[in-house]
C-alpha cells in the first residue's frame, strides 16, 4: 500500500498534472504502457488520474476496460472501444466523442487486463456507481464494497452519503462507512469513535470488521515480545510443548525431531541382508527395538541423530512464543476488543432469545401431542400406546383433504375439524371395542393398544405407501417473523403456539366450567359414587376418550404442517408425549403444560450446546427425565396426600 502511494507520488511529480481541459484520450496517452499492459501495481496510477479528471466518460471507459473491450489502434496509437469484430473488419468507437469508425482488425491490439487488474478497475468503478441514479446500482455498489472493503473507498463513500436521497440506502452507506472507518480510518480517534459506534450491533459485517481489526499473527522471539502483543503463549500451557517446538522447526530455528514414521522409513532404507545395523528385521516389531536400531544407524552416521530432550527443553526455554495484532495501534485494538466483547454479549442475548422462541414452539408441539394423552392417561388412567397413531391419522386426514380441496387455506379449515372427528371416532371405537374391557388392567391396556398401534401403522403404510407425504401450509403461514439477524420464528410455529394456547384454554374451560367436565372429574375421583348419582361412567369414558383422541388428530394436522406426514410420525412422538405427561404430573392440564415447557426448553438448551448432534441432545434429555423422576416421582405438579395414593 505504502509502495503504491510512493510510486504514485513519484509519477505525479514527474509527469505534468492532467488539466481539466484535457480529454480522456490525452490521459490515456500519458499512460500508454500502463493501459496496454496493466499490472496490479501500476494500474493504480492510471485510475488515480482518471478519477481526478472527473469526466463523465471515465466510468464508461472503465467498464469497457474491465470487460476487455478496449483496443489499441496501431494506425494512430489511440485507444478505442471495440464495438464489433467481423470478417477482418472491426467497428471501433472513439472514447471521447463516441464516433464510430471501421478499421482492419489486424491493426487492433486488444487490451487484456488480468484478473487482479480488473478487480482494481471494478473497485474504482464502485465510486461512480455509488452516485448512480438507479438505486439498484447504488445498492450493488455498496454490496461490492462490503464484499471487498478497502481504505480507498472511504473518501468516495463519505462523499456519496451527503447526496443520497434514499433513506434506507443512506443508512446503509453510513453503516458501511462506519465499518470502513473502523478498519481503515486515518486517525486513531476517528477509528476508535467508529469502533465504539459498532457496539450493540449484531450484524455479521460489524463483527467481521471488528475481528478484522483484531487479526493476529504468531511470532517467535528471543527477548521481550515486541509490537502490539495480543497474547504470550507459554509452552505446555497455552500451547503444547510439541506444538511450540514444531513452530521452532517450521521457522528453521531448531532441528526437526525424528518421528516414528521417519524412523520407520530410515530403517527400511537401511535393510541389509534381512537385518538393520546387525539386528534381524523380524525383531523390529516394537518401538523400543526400532529406536535401538535407529540409534545404531545414527552412531554410524547413516541417519541424523535423535534430538535429545534437553535440547528441546533448551530451545523452548530460549524462545518466546506470542501473537501480535496486525494492527499496530494498541488503542485501536483495545477499543475493538472491548466493543467485540459487548457485541458478543449482545449476540448471545439475542441467541438466547431465539433459543427461547425455539423452545417455546417445541414446547407447544409437545403440549399438543401430549395433551390428548394427558386426558386419556391422566384423567382416565388409561395408557394408550396408539395415541401416536391418532396423531398420524389426523395428519393423513389433512393430506387427503388437500388432495380433494386444492385451496390450502380452505383445506386447512376443513381438515382441522375433520381430523378431530376422524381421530375422535377412532378413539371412541377403540374405547368401546378394547379398552372398556381392560379397565383396571393398565399393563394389558398398554399391550393391547400397542397391538392396535402396529396394526394402524402398517395399515397406513399399505394405504399411503412408505414415502413421506407433504402437508402444505397456505401462503400466509409460510415465511417467518424476523425480529433481527439472529431472532426469527416461522409463522407455522406461531400458529402451532396459538393452537396450543387455544386448546389449553378450551380444555380448562371444558373440565372446569361444563357439565361434561364436572362429570369427568366425578368419574375420575369415584366411579362408583358417580354412577350412583346418575352419571353414566361408560358414556363419560367414551366422551373423554373421544376428546383426547380428537385433539391428537388436530395435533397431527399441526405437526404435519411443519414436519412430513409418514406412517411412523406418531411413533416418534409417543415416548416424548408420555414423558411430558409423566414429568408434568398426571391428571392435570397445567402439569402437562409444565412438562411440555420443561422438556422443550431442556431439549433446545442441550441442542444449543452441541448443535450438530441432536441425537445426543435427545439422549441426555431422556437421561435427565429418568433422573428427574427419581426426585419427583409424581411430576412437577403433584397431588399429595391420601388422595394421591388412592
Amino acid at each position, binding site marked *: 500500500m505504502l509502495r503504491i502511494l510512493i510510486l504514485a507520488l513519484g509519477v505525479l511529480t514527474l509527469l505534468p498534472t492532467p488539466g481539466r481541459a484535457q480529454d480522456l484520450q490525452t490521459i490515456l496517452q500519458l499512460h500508454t504502457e500502463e493501459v496496454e499492459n496493466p499490472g496490479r501495481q501500476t494500474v493504480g496510477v492510471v485510475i488515480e488520474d482518471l478519477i481526478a479528471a472527473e469526466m463523465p466518460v471515465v466510468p464508461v471507459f472503465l467498464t469497457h476496460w474491465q470487460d476487455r473491450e478496449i483496443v489499441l489502434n496501431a494506425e494512430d496509437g489511440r485507444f478505442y472501444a471495440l464495438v464489433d469484430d467481423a470478417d477482418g473488419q472491426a467497428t471501433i468507437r472513439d472514447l471521447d466523442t463516441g464516433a464510430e469508425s471501421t478499421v482492419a482488425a489486424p491493426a487492433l491490439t486488444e487490451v487484456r487486463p488480468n484478473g487482479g487488474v480488473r478487480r482494481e478497475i471494478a473497485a474504482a468503478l464502485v465510486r461512480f456507481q455509488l452516485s448512480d441514479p438507479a438505486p439498484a446500482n447504488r445498492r450493488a455498489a455498496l454490496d461490492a464494497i462490503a464484499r471487498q472493503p478497502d481504505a480507498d473507498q472511504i473518501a468516495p463513500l463519505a462523499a456519496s452519503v451527503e447526496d443520497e436521497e434514499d433513506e434506507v440506502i443512506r443508512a446503509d452507506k453510513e453503516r458501511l462507512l462506519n465499518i470502513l472507518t473502523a478498519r481503515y480510518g486515518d486517525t486513531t480517534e476517528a477509528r476508535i469513535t467508529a469502533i465504539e459506534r459498532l457496539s450493540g450491533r449484531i450484524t455479521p459485517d460489524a463483527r467481521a470488521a471488528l475481528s478484522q481489526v483484531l487479526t493476529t499473527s504468531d511470532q517467535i522471539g528471543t527477548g521481550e515480545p515486541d509490537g502490539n502483543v495480543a497474547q504470550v503463549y507459554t509452552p505446555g500451557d497455552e500451547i503444547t510443548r510439541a506444538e511450540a517446538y514444531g513452530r521452532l522447526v517450521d521457522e528453521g530455528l531448531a532441528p526437526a525431531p525424528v518421528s516414528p514414521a521417519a524412523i520407520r522409513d530410515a530403517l527400511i532404507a537401511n535393510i541389509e541382508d534381512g537385518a538393520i545395523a546387525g539386528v534381524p528385521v523380524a525383531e523390529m516389531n516394537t518401538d523400543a527395538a526400532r529406536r535401538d536400531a535407529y540409534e545404531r544407524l545414527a552412531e554410524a552416521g547413516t541417519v541424523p541423530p535423535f534430538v535429545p530432550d534437553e535440547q528441546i527443553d533448551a530451545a523452548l526455554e530460549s524462545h518466546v512464543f506470542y501473537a501480535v495484532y496486525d494492527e499496530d495501534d494498541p488503542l485501536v485494538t483495545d477499543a475493538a476488543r472491548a466493543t467485540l466483547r459487548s457485541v458478543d454479549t449482545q449476540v448471545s442475548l439475542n441467541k438466547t432469545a431465539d433459543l427461547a422462541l425455539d423452545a417455546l414452539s417445541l414446547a407447544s408441539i409437545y403440549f399438543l401431542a401430549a395433551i390428548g394423552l394427558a386426558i386419556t392417561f391422566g384423567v382416565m388412567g388409561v395408557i394408550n400406546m396408539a395415541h401416536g397413531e391418532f396423531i398420524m391419522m389426523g395428519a393423513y386426514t389433512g393430506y387427503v383433504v388437500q388432495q380433494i380441496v386444492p385451496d390450502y387455506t380452505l383445506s386447512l379449515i376443513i381438515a382441522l375439524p375433520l381430523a378431530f372427528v376422524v381421530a375422535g371416532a377412532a378413539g371412541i371405537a377403540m374405547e368401546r371395542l378394547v379398552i372398556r374391557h381392560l379397565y383396571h388392567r393398565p399393563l394389558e391396556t398398554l399391550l393391547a393398544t400397542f397391538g392396535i398401534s402396529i396394526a394402524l401403522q402398517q395399515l397406513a403404510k399399505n394405504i399411503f405407501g412408505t414415502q413421506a407425504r407433504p402437508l402444505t401450509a397456505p401462503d400466509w403461514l409460510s415465511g417467518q417473523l424476523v425480529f433481527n439477524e439472529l431472532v426469527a420464528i416461522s409463522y407455522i410455529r406461531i400458529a402451532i403456539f396459538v393452537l396450543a394456547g387455544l386448546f389449553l384454554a378450551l380444555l380448562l374451560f371444558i373440565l372446569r366450567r361444563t357439565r361434561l367436565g364436572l362429570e369427568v372429574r366425578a368419574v375420575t375421583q369415584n366411579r362408583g359414587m358417580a354412577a350412583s348419582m346418575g352419571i353414566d361412567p361408560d358414556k363419560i369414558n367414551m366422551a373423554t376418550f373421544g376428546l383426547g383422541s380428537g385433539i391428537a388428530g388436530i395435533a397431527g394436522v399441526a405437526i404435519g404442517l411443519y414436519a412430513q406426514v409418514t406412517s411412523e410420525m406418531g411413533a416418534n412422538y409417543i415416548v416424548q408425549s408420555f414423558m411430558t405427561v409423566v414429568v408434568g404430573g398426571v391428571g392435570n392440564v397445567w402439569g402437562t403444560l409444565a412438562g411440555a415447557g420443561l422438556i422443550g426448553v431442556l431439549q433446545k438448551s442441550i441442542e444449543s450446546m452441541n448443535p450438530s448432534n441432536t441425537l445426543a441432545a435427545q439422549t441426555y434429555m431422556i437421561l435427565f427425565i429418568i433422573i428427574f423422576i427419581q426426585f419427583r416421582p409424581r411430576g412437577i405438579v403433584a*397431588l*399429595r*396426600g*391420601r*388422595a394421591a395414593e388412592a
Partner: protein
Amino acid sequence: MTLLEVDGISVTFDGFRAINSLSLSMGEPELRAIIGPNGAGKTTFMDIVTGKTRPDSGRVVWGEDNRDLIGMSESAIARAGIGRKFQKPTVFEDQTVRENLAMALKARRDPFRVLFRRADNAGRIAELADEISLADHLMRKAGELSHGQKQWLEIGMLLAQEPRLLLVDEPAAGMTPAERGHTADLLKRLAKTRAVIVVEHDMEFVRRLDCKVTVLHEGRVLAEGSLDHVTKNRDVIDVYLGR
C-alpha cells in the same frame, strides 16, 4: 415397660391436618382399642407407625434401644416387630395357604437367603394352620377361601411374623357374631404376650375386648381410659352424637 412411644406427631395433607400433635404410649404386653369417628385419623396413625406415611413432625420411639421409626422403610419396621392387619383381608390370593404362611414365617428376609434357604418350617406351619383352623386347607389357594377364612389366614400370617406389636384395623367388620366372639378372644389371648392395638368402630366389640380405650378426634387424643370412663366423657358424647 414402654414398647412404643408416639410423641407429638403431626401430618398435613394439602392443608388438611390429618394428625395434630398426637401422643400415645403402649406397653408390652398391652391391649388397646382406638375408636373415633370417620376422619379422626385412625388409619393415618397406623400408616405413620408402619412407615407408610411420614409425619411432618414428631417422633415414634420403639423398643428397648429407643429407635426412632420415622424414616425407616415399611419393611424394616415390619422386621423390627410391628405387624399390621388390614381392614379388608389382604392375603395373596394366587398362592396357597401354605405359601402364604411360609412367606410370613419369621426368618431372614434378604433375597439371597430367601433364594438359597429353601427348607421351610413345616412343623411351625402346621401348628399355625391348626391355630387358625385352616389345617385342612393348606394346599388350597387363598383366593378360594371364604371371607372369614381369609381374615383368619391373615391373622395366621401375622402370628407367623411373631410381631411384638400388632396393629389391627377393624377386625370385626363383616363377621358373624360367632366369629366376632372368636376374634375378640383371640385378640385378648394374643395381648397376653405382646402389644395389640385394635382400631374399631363397633362399640360392642370394643366392650368385649375389655381394655384401655383411646378416643381420637380430628387427629388428636380426645380421651383415654376404660370404655365406661370415656363414654361418660362430655367431649366424646359431643363428638359421637353431634352438638
